[in-house]
Each structure stands twice: as structure tokens, then as C-alpha cells.
């Protein structure tokens, strides 16, 4: 295994050179609804192309937009910008997109308040619940001057959640993010969902129209759905605006509640807030951070090698003996982009990695420590030494490292622990000396007895014979 991975590593690097900086591929399919003008978003497309992606534009009903062909993915990533589309060609239907995602298609959804009922139902599969179509996020305290309260300004420090590598530090300390006329959703309990951006405390959900001073009307519009006024009001952290989902197989799906965020007019523009200060909008930075993560450029960790061996050996065994000293080593590497725009793998350093030696339940749980001495080209090497349990069975070396914003690290290698062989037991046991002595003395005594018996019996006969003779 180690040999193959060593061989593979340079090849992978070569592939990275040829391709883009994404660790999986650079073919992007962009599905644009016909009502959305492509040119309004030119800066976003440009930024993607600059990063080396090849964009293909299709419409939701395009018959030739095939995601999967002959069981192979046609594209590596998908940008789905068709919130209002009522119908899709079969290959772009929610079900086929989901299946393509299971096969490895990273997807970035741009949504809007006009999200169709169909789409909403589909997003429930990811455990996302959207607000009513007519409602949008409004914040009457934070919006750019000369604009409407529906273009919500969000402060990165309070609204952005820092999760792993998704958002770069410069973004989270950068200018405000404009969230123009976007929808709001709640994320359910799905453990694979990661919150990225949520609404501010001052924002609310309502219809984007001027309200009269009638309090009832305000109340109504604030509570969202007028028919169902008892529903809790979404606000603050509960109101998610941008979320991501990483599937068990490390395929990434992003949901951005407002497609207009990437409009050219908000892309790194100077914005004047209500208090008159001027900031550079953080949209461009935020979106590129997010799309980098979705398209597997950042936060990607790979297991290069996992091996185990007995103390004093180097090759992995299928069978270990009870109480063997076993060394397990794991090589992890993080994906990064070099300065000249190529893909590369570098060290991944964490201090909370654990190894479990499991048969039904973990019999050994120990921390994997980074091994600085290991000479490896890429990545970092982690090692753990432990003594095999005194229990035979089929064990697994299990490493699981689930952290939001990083690829899930799962490794499971099977090896058996067997009892001692018939000739591996100690030959002489100290505790058994009484028995050894007992056995030996009995044998010796028996021999002596036999000898005596034989000689005395002879003598007896002779004596008897003599007596008779006498």
C-alpha cells in the first residue's frame, strides 16, 4: 500500500498540474434560468475561469445537459442557478442531481425568494425548510444608503460562522456582506449540514413592500405567513442564509439564499452604510471562499497511506498475536493551491486525532501523535503504538475524524488478533515446578521400586527354594 501511494503521489501531483486547483476536477456546468441574465454576474464567472474552471452554460430544460454519462460524471461541479424554474430536463431533475451528487458532483445552489414549490420540496431532502415565496429577509437598520432594506448588510464578524477552512480569516474580518432580496431557510438536525452565514439580530422576514404605520399590518408581515401566524419567527442564528452540506463521501453542496449576492453590482463595491461609513463589500471574497470550499479547493484532506506493523517488523500482517506491540501509522495531507496556481498536497496538522482498535466496541483508544521524524514527501504522518488486547477476534483499526469544514477522515483496516500458536507458549513455567518435581520423583521412585522388587523377589525365591531344600 505504501509503495503504491508513494508511486501515486507524484502522478497525482502531475494531474494537479495539468488540471485546475480543485482537487477533484475543473469541469463546471452552470445551469442558468432563462430569466437570469448571464452578463449581470460576469465577475463571478470571470473569477471562476481565473481559477481554472471550464464553464459550460445550459438552461434547465436543455436536453443535452447530461450530468452522468455511461456511469461516469460528465462534470465535476455544478452551479445551479435556477430557483424559479418550474420544470427540468430529465437529466437535471432533482433526483438525477441527487444521484450525481452521490457519484461525486459538487453542487452550488443559488436561490432566491421565487423558489418554486418543487424546488422547496426537493431541498427538504437535505433537511432545509424555506420560508414562503413572497417573503424575503429585511433589515431596516442595516442596508446600504440609497438602497432598500431588502438589501441586507451583514457584518461578517457577527453573522459569519467560522467552520474549518471554509471562510478565510480575511473575509471574516473584511467588509460587510450584502444579502440582497434573499430567501431564508432553517437547517434541520441533519448532522452533515454546516451553517455558514445567518441573519443578524435586527433583521426580520417580511414582504418587500412599504408598510403603513398600522401595527397590525406590521405584525402580520413580520410573522411571515399570515395564515399561520403561530409559527415561530425566524431570526438571528435560526435564520440561515448560506449553508453547506458535506455528504458522507465528502461531496459538497452549497446553498446560497440570494443569487443576487454574486451580481456584479455588489462584487467588491464600495458601500455606504446608514451611518455614513464607507466599506468595501465582502461579497466577492465571501463567494470565492465559499465556492473554493464547495469545489474542493480548500478544506480537503486526504488519507495518503494507512499501515500497521508489529514492533520490529515493517510489513502489515493479517494476523497479530495477542499482546503484540502494534504500530499504526496514518499519513494525511491537505490540499492547497500553490502560488503559481497548481494543485498540491501539504501537511495537515491536528492534535486531536484518535485511533480505535475495534471489535464491536473499541478495545483500545489512543491518540495519534504526529511523527516528525517520518520522511514523507507530502502530508503529515501520525503514529500510535499500543499493545494488542488479550482477546482474539477480527479487529479494525478505525480512524474517524469528523470536523465541519474539513473532509471527513474515515479509515478502517481489518486485522485479526489470534491466540498464541502451540509452540509459542513458554516451555517451562516457574509455577509448575512442584508438578515437574512430582512427576520426576514419582518416576524415579517407581524405577527404584521396580529394581528393588525384582531383586528382592529373586532373593525370595532363592530363599524359598533353599528353605524347601532344607
Amino acid at each position, binding site marked *: 500500500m505504501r509503495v503504491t501511494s508513494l508511486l501515486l503521489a507524484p502522478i497525482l501531483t502531475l494531474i494537479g498540474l495539468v488540471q485546475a486547483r480543485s482537487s477533484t476536477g475543473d469541469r463546471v456546468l452552470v445551469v442558468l434560468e432563462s430569466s437570469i441574465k448571464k452578463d449581470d454576474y460576469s465577475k463571478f464567472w470571470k473569477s471562476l475561469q481565473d481559477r481554472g474552471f471550464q464553464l459550460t452554460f445550459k438552461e434547465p430544460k436543455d436536453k443535452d445537459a447530461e450530468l452522468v454519462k455511461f456511469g461516469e460524471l460528465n462534470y465535476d461541479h455544478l452551479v445551479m442557478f435556477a430557483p424559479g424554474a418550474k420544470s427540468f430536463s430529465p437529466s437535471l431533475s432533482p433526483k438525477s442531481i441527487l444521484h450525481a*451528487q452521490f457519484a461525486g458532483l459538487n453542487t452550488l445552489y443559488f436561490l432566491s425568494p421565487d423558489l418554486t414549490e418543487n424546488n422547496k420540496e426537493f431541498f*427538504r431532502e437535505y433537511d432545509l425548510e424555506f420560508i414562503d415565496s413572497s417573503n424575503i429577509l429585511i433589515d431596516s437598520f442595516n442596508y446600504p444608503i440609497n438602497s432598500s432594506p431588502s438589501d441586507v448588510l451583514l457584518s461578517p464578524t457577527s453573522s459569519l460562522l467560522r467552520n474549518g477552512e471554509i471562510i478565510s480569516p480575511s473575509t471574516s474580518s473584511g467588509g460587510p456582506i450584502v444579502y440582497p432580496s434573499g430567501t431564508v431557510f432553517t437547517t434541520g438536525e441533519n448532522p*452533515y449540514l454546516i451553517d455558514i452565514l445567518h441573519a443578524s439580530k435586527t433583521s426580520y422576514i417580511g414582504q418587500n413592500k412599504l408598510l403603513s404605520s398600522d401595527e397590525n399590518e406590521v405584525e402580520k408581515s413580520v410573522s411571515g405567513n399570515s395564515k399561520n401566524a403561530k409559527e415561530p419567527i425566524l431570526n438571528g442564528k435560526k435564520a440561515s442564509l448560506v449553508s453547506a452540506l458535506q*455528504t*458522507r*463521501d465528502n*461531496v459538497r453542496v452549497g446553498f446560497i439564499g440570494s443569487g443576487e449576492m454574486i451580481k456584479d453590482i455588489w462584487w467588491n463595491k464600495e458601500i455606504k452604510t446608514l451611518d455614513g461609513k464607507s466599506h468595501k463589500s465582502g461579497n466577492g471574497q465571501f463567494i470565492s471562499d465559499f465556492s473554493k470550499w464547495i469545489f474542493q479547493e480548500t478544506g480537503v484532506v486526504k488519507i495518503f497511506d494507512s499501515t500497521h506493523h508489529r514492533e520490529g517488523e515493517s510489513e502489515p500482517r493479517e*494476523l497479530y498475536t495477542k499482546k503484540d506491540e502494534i504500530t499504526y501509522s496514518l499519513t494525511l495531507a491537505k490540499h492547497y493551491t500553490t502560488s503559481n496556481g497548481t494543485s498540491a498536497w501539504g501537511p495537515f496538522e491536528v492534535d486531536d486525532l484518535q485511533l480505535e482498535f475495534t471489535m464491536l466496541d473499541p478495545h483500545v483508544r489512543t491518540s495519534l501523535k504526529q511523527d516528525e521524524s517520518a520522511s514523507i514527501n507530502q502530508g503529515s504522518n501520525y503514529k500510535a503504538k499500543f499493545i494488542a488486547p488479550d482477546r482474539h477476534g477480527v479487529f*479494525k483499526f478505525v480512524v474517524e475524524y469528523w470536523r465541519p469544514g474539513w473532509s471527513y477522515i474515515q479509515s478502517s483496516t481489518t486485522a485479526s488478533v489470534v491466540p498464541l500458536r502451540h509452540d509459542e507458549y513458554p516451555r517451562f513455567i516457574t509455577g509448575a515446578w512442584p508438578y515437574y518435581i512430582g512427576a520426576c520423583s514419582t518416576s524415579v521412585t517407581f524405577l527404584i521400586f521396580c529394581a528393588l522388587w525384582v531383586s528382592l523377589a529373586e532373593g525370595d525365591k532363592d530363599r524359598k527354594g533353599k528353605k524347601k531344600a532344607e
Partner: protein
Amino acid sequence: MAPKGKSPAATPSKNTPISTPLAKKATEDPLAKAIIVEDEEIPSGTVTPKTIKLAYPLPEHISSTTINNTESLLRFVILALICGAAIGSRLFAVIRFESVIHEFDPWFNFRASKVLVNEGFYEFWNWFDPTAWYPLGRTVGTTLYPGLMVTAGLIWHFLRLINMPVDIRNVCVMLAPGFAGLTAWTTYLFTKEMSTPAAGLLAAAFIGIAPGYISRSVAGSYDNEAIAIFLLMAAFYTWIKAMKTGSALWGMLTALFYGWMVAAWGGYVFITNMIPLHAFVLILMGRFNNRLYTAYSSWYVIGTISSMQVPFVEFLPIRTSEHMAALGVFGLLQLIAFVEIVRRLVPGKQFQLLLRAFVVLVFVVSFAALVVLTFSGWIAPFAGRFYSLWDTGYAKVHMPIIASVSEHQPTAWPSFFFDLEMLIFFFPAGVFWCFKELRDEQIFIIIYATLSAYFAGVMVRLMLVITPVVCVAAAIAFSKLLEAYIDPVIPESEDEIEEATAHQPMSKAKAKKIAAARQNKGEFNFTGILGGKGNKGIFGLDTRFAVVSVLSLFLFLFVYHCTWVTSSAYSSPSVVLASRNPDGSQNIIDDFREAYYWIRQNTEKDAVVMSWWDYGYQIAGMADRPTLVDNNTWNNTHIATVGKAMSSNEDVAYPILRKHDVDYVLVIFGGLLGYSGDDINKFLWMVRIAQGEWPDEVQEVNYFTQRGEYAVDERATPTMKNSLMYKMSYYRFHELFGGHPAQDRVRGQTIPSTGIQLDTLDEAFTSENWIVRIYKVKKEDPIGREHKAVSSFEGGKKLKKSASSITAASGGKKSRPNM
């Protein structure tokens, strides 16, 4: 058709050696000098005394050497033919189907033999099988009786040595018939010790074809019992021999056969207790002598040491109650021998009394010590299986896993006749004859008969143990009858006796004395009406003819019955099934192998297959995949886990399946074909065994309808309908009937046509006749949905509310994703 070699034994009136003992006597006994054995034989030279009347003329002028030589030749030929018949009648399965390993356990033995042959003895000895009892694994080398595999391996090596490269499979298939031939031979020797060589030949013929023994030893039935019965008879024969001769050599031979038996079969405990019991009874009868002492001591010491060489047995002989009788009798014998010596040397009467008291005291003290050791845990009490021998209801309450095996059920009365036919009627008569003579060795038969008759009544499986003694006893009775009726000597009529007594005045007491003296000589004597008279025998030719022909008819019927039972009941490999087409041609149902080979060829090498334990060995043997549980039912909890998974609904079962890394689930379903040994019929045992471990989660009551019926149609309870086993069995079953009511042919019930939805499993394979159905366990959904939600989404249903808002009541924090 009766196999060829059987006829000579079955028609004793023609040219059998039945009368050979008479011939032997003819040479010794002046009274019977003229009795000639065979009609065809040349008359001997002896002159018939005028006083003896013969029912039919006998040839004369045959020298005794000729008779002896002919006898031995005939005996040899007949024995060879009997061995041939024993082997031949076991080959139905090979001829009808193919040279294939049968049933369940033999598949494991076969697999182990392959390991032994391919990887050598030491690898076999240390074999750890990670694929069995996944993930616990099984240290096979130390948890099996290696005797069978080692025997097969030795034969295989021997055949290669003489340049006969035979596939190990064929060695395994043919091992049982081969050893059945040897069993016939040892039974002959054994019976010869008990009675006459004629009875021996009859016994050999009986054991050769008795269905009770054939049931476990047809070709392909490569199980421990295949060689165990041979070893049993060989050990008993050598024991009798040792006891008779008092030779340590025979005692050692007994021990060696005993050691081999220990290595081969768990039933060795029967010998371990039979021999001490025999010795003990002899002591009680005051028949202690030095021969017994030598035989028993040499057997016990060497036998125990050799049995302890088997890793699976190890220290059991000194640590479990089952073996304590042998140890106790050994001690008792030493004491008695010691006392005997002392008594011989020291005359004093008081001293003798003291000695007797000493013996009793030591006996009581050591027995008390035994009890104390048992209760303090040093000596393991009897295993559960032994309790179930005394209380037939014990297993059902305490060990459902043992009770669930059909061969552990109490025997049904008809099966005694089915397995032994007329022998079961002659059996008591034979035991009676043993009582009549009551020599040391005949006491052995009596003890053996009593014990095994009880055991055979308690457990179907132990029919095997009673079969040899039934054959021996029946043969003794049969040969006595034949001897009496073929004997050509006509006794003197009463008038003649009176005449004789008139001529030679003799008191009645004197006559009786003579009769008694004759009896003591071991001469044949009639009892009852005939025995009361001073003379005995059969008058006339017609009675002779009538009885002998009826007995011959019995023998013919016996052969016919045995052949029929063997061919119809005991020759199915159960891996391959056969049925008859309407036109009478044979239809082979090969679903098991079809499915196992599908697994072998279409799944990952390390894919774990879960099934009920019955099929564990077959999956390991034929599909070569890891299994959760198998026929080596050593871990009740693990089996109960599988039972729980099978009897629970999908929500409960799925985590169990995932925890045990199960990739495929295999069920046996006979509803389409009418194959009654399927999993739905075994299902209640799964429920019971699971209930034993988790009484709160699985309850047997829930699987019965309110009226207490075990139903699978629409009356079935929700628990039943939601159980994984029910779903897997009947999944898509109604589709097969195209709208007509779906009929389950085993249970004769109509399956509801509302489709069964399986969320966590995918149907992977269903065999031609639906006997084997294999399901693949789905992985967790990549985006974290419940499997029910996944299948409703795939089915085109849309969610009206998000999954969390449905189950949001708890509203807790996001949990860490679980594997």
C-alpha cells in the same frame, strides 16, 4: 433391490455359517458327533451313533479340518460380502446426485480437511478462522474434534503415497461408507465375543444395513459419527477382549481406540461412562479379579492421557463431572486390589473387617470430596446437554438453542421401527439371552442396552448409539432361534425317556443335575415347557421348516425395508433437492448451490453474510464468505443478536446489521416450492432465542395472533409483519402470482397482496425456486436521511415538511454523524 452382498446373510437356511458353531461342537461333543453342518458338504467320516435321531439326513465322512477350513473361508467371504453391502447401500446419494458433501456440519468438516491437507497439520492445529463468528472469529484448531479430519487426511496422504492422487473431496465423501464396512467387521468381532461367530455374522449384516446407522453414514455425510461408531465398537471389542484375557496389551488397544474416539466425537463420554459402569457392576457382583484390574487400569491411564492430548478436551477428564465416574472406579479398583493383596497376606478376620470398613470409608470420603469440589467450582458440573438427557423439558426452558435442533428432540416411537425394523423386537430377546448366560461380557451388553435404550428414547440423535447394541442383541436372539431350529437332532420322546429311566433308575434330582451340568457347559438349552423336561429339541421337519422359513422371510423383509428407507429417507444430500415431475422424471432443485455460488462470484471477498446459524457452515464452505453465526453454536449471545435482527423491525435491525458490518442477509424461503425447512418455520426459535437475551425487546407472544395461531396471512400480527424475516421472505412474493392470491405452499396461507416495503435492504438475488433470497444491506444515506425517507423520495413521493420539523420535538443539538 437389495444390494448384492446381503443375500447370503439373509438366507441362513441355504449356505450360511449359522450352523458353524454346531459344527465346532461336533468336533468337541461326542453326543453331537454326527451333526453335520451343511447340506452340500461331504459327509464326515464319523459314525453316527444309533441313539441319535436326525430330522434330515446329513452328509457323512467329512474330516474336521475340512469343516474348519470351509468354515473360515465362508466366514471370510461372507464378512467381505457384508462389508461390500454396507458400503454399497450407502452410495445411493452419490449415484442419484453426485459426489457432494451433505447437509451442514459436513461442510465445515470438509473445509477443515482442506485446510489440513493443503496447509499441513500445524497450520490446522493453530487455525484461526476470522471468517466464522464475525467479528469474534473462531480458534478452530482448539475448538473441534480433529479425529475425523486427521483420519481423512491420513487416508489422503496414504493414497498419494501409493500413487493414487485422489481429490480430498472424494476421500471425505467415501469415508463414511468405508468406515461402515469396518464397523460391520468390528461388530462381528464384538458379537463373537458375546456369543457365537454365527451371531457375529448376523450382527455384522444387521449393522451393515440398519437404517439407524445409515442415517449418519451415507456417502457424503462426512460427519464425526461416520467414524465414531466404528471406534465405539472397536473400543468395546478391545475392552471385552482385555477384560477376558486380562492382557495389558488389549487394554492399551482399548485406550488407543478410546483416544481416537475422543479425538473424533463428543459422544466419547458414552464410552467414558460405559466401561467404568461395567467394571463397577462386576465389582458389585463380586467378580473382581486381576484381569479386570489390569484391563481397566491400563485402559484408564493410557486412555485418559491420550484423550488429554486433544486440545478441545485438554483437562476436561479431570475437571468435569462426566468423567468422574471413570476416575472413581479407577480409585475403587486400586483400593480393592490393595485389599485383596492384604487379605491374601494377612488372615485375621477382624483385620479383614477393618479393611472392608476402610474401603467403604475411603469411597465415601472421596465421593464427598468430589461433591465439595463440584460445588466449589473446581470440577465443572454436568453440561446443559446432559441435564436435558434427564429432563427432556430442560432444554426448552433453559437452552432454546439446543432445543431448536431437530435432532435433539425426544424420539418418536415409530422411528424405532423405521430405523431398526424387526431388530427392535428381537432386541429384548437378545438381552434376555444375555441374562440367561450372564458371563462378564454379557453383563456389558445388558448395561449397554439399558443405558442406550433410555438415551435413544430421549434424543433422536442417540438412535445412533442404540443401533449397534440392538444389532448385536438381535443377532444373538436370531442365531439362537436358528440354531435351535436348524439343529437336525431330534430329542428322545417322553416315552423313550421313561424307558430310559426305567432301564437306568435315576432320581429326578440326578436328572436335573445332569441338565444343570450340561447348562454349565454352555450347551444350548431350552427353557419353559421344553426346558422343564429332561430332554429338549425340535421334533419333526415341518416345525423346523415353518419357523426357519418365517425367519428367512423376516430377514428378506428386513433387507427390503432397510434398502427402501436408505434410498427414500436417508440419501438426500439436502444441499441438492430432488422432486418428481408429473411424468415421473427427476427434477433437481439446486437453489442452495446456485445462491452460494452467486455470493462467491458477485460479492466482495470480505463481504459479511448474515443468516440463521443453520446455514453458516454452508456459506463458509460453498460461498467462502464471513458469517456471523454458524452451526458451531458456541456463543448464544451472538446467535441471539442475529435472532433479534431477524425478528425486529427495520429500525431496530439496521443498527445491528451495521454494527456487525453485515453486507448481505440470506434467508431460506420455501413458500413457493413447499420446502418446509425454511426460515419462517424456524422463525419462532429465533424469536425465543432472542427473547432469552432481550426479554424486554422481543416477545414470543407478539408473533402469535390473538387466537394463538402462527399466521403469515392477513391475520399476522403487526410485529410479525414488520419483522425483518417476514419482510425478506415475502418481499415481492405476491407479484409472482400476477394478481391471483399469493399462496404460501408450506403454511397453506394466502399472503396479503399489499406490497412489502424494504427500506434498509435491497433485494440482491433470489434463486430459481425462491428457496434462497439474498438481500444487500444499504449503506447510510450520504446526505443523512432516514432510509424510509430515501425510499419514499425514490418512489416519487415528496416531502410536505422537512424531516427535522417532523421529528423536531427533541430539538437538540446537531449530533456527530455516526458511521
